[in-house]
């Protein structure tokens, strides 16, 4: 399930709801991403989304991860609009029978979200507004998963 929202969320409350009543689940991995203060340089972050396009793209990423790693369930909650330091911006949870699948699914999903999700991000700080693109590291991280499933990082090492 994928949800875009302007309202803040509490990662713990999302995790509680996500984990409820899972008798066959062995492992749940969650990722929560925050706006960092970076010693005062980021005052607020502004995230543009294109409703009906952005959520569809993320839903496709979530479904790809779900089938690739055999997940029992997956959740993505992403904020849009303006956010300040310390506020959660993204929450991803993956439920699986075994921990490796849950870790790799959450990891891949975050790499894809950070580099390929259709958002447009602006940081508003002391020096005014600045549009941000993915870092070289973000692109590299996402490429780790582009090989076919037989050669994912953990299996080839």
């Amino acid at each position, binding site marked *: 399930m994928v949800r875009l929202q302007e309202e803040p969320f509490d990662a713990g409350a999302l995790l509680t709801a996500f984990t409820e009543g899972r008798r066959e689940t062995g492992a749940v991995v969650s990722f929560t*991403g925050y706006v960092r203060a970076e010693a005062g340089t980021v005052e607020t972050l502004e*995230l*543009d989304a*294109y409703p*009906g*396009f952005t959520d*569809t793209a993320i839903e496709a990423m979530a479904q790809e991860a779900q089938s690739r790693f055999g997940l029992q369930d997956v959740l993505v909650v*992403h904020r849009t609009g303006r956010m300040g330091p310390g506020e959660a*911006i*993204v929450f991803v949870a993956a439920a699986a029978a075994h921990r490796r699948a849950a870790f790799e699914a959450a990891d891949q999903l975050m790499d894809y*979200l*950070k*580099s*390929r*999700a*259709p*958002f*447009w*991000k*602006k940081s508003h700080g002391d020096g005014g*507004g600045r*549009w*941000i*693109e*993915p870092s070289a590291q*973000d692109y590299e991280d996402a490429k780790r998963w582009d090989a076919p499933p037989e050669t994912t990082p953990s299996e080839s090492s």
Partner: protein
Amino acid sequence: MARVLLFGRLRDVAGWRERDLDLSSLFALRDALAAEDAALGEALFAPGVQAAVDKALVRGDASLSAASEVAFLPPMSGG
């Protein structure tokens, strides 16, 4: 009357987010925007800027109807 949506830095360049324009193809629409606003034109033709018609990315030209929604998307930042 196609609806035109701008995202990211295109909004800052154009000074608007959404307009209705009566043009029958994507290329004609983009050319009209560029003719009207040179800075926006440059931004629309910059590398990595994509267009979506009715929420699906298109390469090349596309015909537009009155109900079409056209979005111009600068390089995506990721979440």
